[in-house]
């Protein structure tokens, strides 16, 4: 496992740069990862990421896009505008969560 210095803190990451220990995540780290991904975070981004974090905390797993959009937090079109090219992959990375597993 590698460590990476993000926003002045050493954190554990996997080979794709996803945090492997969510307890090390802070909002500052999220901001820094977002910058690397070329995303400027707004209130709407945070709403999506907070929903993902809440779901992982409660269910132990990332929700599907369908579950996310059904929750009323964001509609699909907006989600793709907020996090272009793979919204779940990007949002979970910035939120310090695991990479969404590809389906079966």
């Amino acid at each position, binding site marked *: 496992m590698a460590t990476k210095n993000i926003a002045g803190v050493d954190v554990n990451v996997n080979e794709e740069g996803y945090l492997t220990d969510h307890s090390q995540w802070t909002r500052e780290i999220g901001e820094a990862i977002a910058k690397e991904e070329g995303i400027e975070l707004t209130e709407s981004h945070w709403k999506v990421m907070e929903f993902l974090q809440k779901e992982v905390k409660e269910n132990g797993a990332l929700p*599907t*896009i369908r*579950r996310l959009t059904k929750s009323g937090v964001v509609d699909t*079109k907006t989600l*793709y505008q907020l996090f272009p090219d*793979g919204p779940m992959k990007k949002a979970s990375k910035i939120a310090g969560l695991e990479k969404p597993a590809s*389906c*079966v």
Partner: protein
Amino acid sequence: MKKVLILGAGTAGTIMANRLLRKLDKKDWTITVVDQHPKHYYQPGFLFIPFEMYTEEDVTRNKTDFLPKNVEYIQEIIEIIEPEKNRVKLQNGKSIEYHILIIATGTNIVPGEVDGLLNSSWGENAFDFYTVEGSVALAKRLKGWKGGKLVVHIAEMPIKCPVAPLEFTFLADWYFSKKGIRDDVEIKYVTPLSGAFTKPRASGVLSHLLENKNVNLVPDFNIMHVDGSAKKLVSFDEKEVDYDILVSIPTNMGDSVIERSGMGDELNYIPTHKHTLQSKAHENIFVLGDATDLPSSKAGSVAHFEAEILTENILHFIRNKPLKEDFDGHANCFIESGFGKGFLIDFNYDVEPVEGKFPLPIIGPMALLKESRMNHFGKLAFKWIYWNVLLRGWPIPMITAQMTKLGKKL
């Protein structure tokens, strides 16, 4: 008398009825099966109908032909499951009380979930091949087709038989080659995944095969809507793909009775323990086949392997013994690759498809994750095995419910 009630008489429910009847004590237990449809379809055969390799008759039988005489069969729509009352209500007003419920209501395509798909000349220029009606209509359309843009499109995962869209594409390449019009047909494979398949090693091999067959892979495509008048697919990030004929694999969802009963997730799949097949919400409810939310493939082979383990667990449950955590997600799938050849893949929750020999290590005779004629004949022979061995709930010689690592290049 106590009752086991099985909802659904497809592959999973039929195998389970046959197996349980042999194992349960007839003095104490009766088995009832409910399904709304009279016909049992050999679903792996739908793939061959558009290319005139099979007909509707080849894949159609009566459900009752495969259910034992001592099992009560009711053909009726299921209105609602009431787990708290151990009761199921049917549309004809009758109720059935159960001691053990096995839900095998499967998964269906829901074209209405893809915006614009049903308004896109569905049945004329846009088709599915996951229903007998869809594949028969597609056969008619392809027969007189002179060429143009053929798009095979997966709306979202998970789907039943995740290799079927690839097989369709390979067979289309072969079909148009045989007709002498392959140069006039542009084939695109459009998927929300990042590659051809869900598992990395198989995805690499299969992506390469698409390339060899001159099929354009369009990955990471998340559909926003189908524009039927302009005949194009539009993604959320505003990519577009034009088609003349669209072969759609629409959103898959569990049966609507699961939604009506409030027992499913957002796709109507029932939260199920991945190793015991017990429902997470109710201890006397078990879930089998495509109806589960398990991270295994939705496929007949999986239902077959699950049925073997679930039979044991039903017996354990009746005897108040702890359930066995034996189901490992084992799937075993033939992949038709066209020109009389095929692949075979064998995998589970933890081990992705790899190269090797099957079912016997070193000897085979079938090759894993490699193209061969033997695998194609295996696929064709499987129809006989399905009707005569698998549905009857008999084990297939040398093939075990749990995946073996022997003979695999891990």
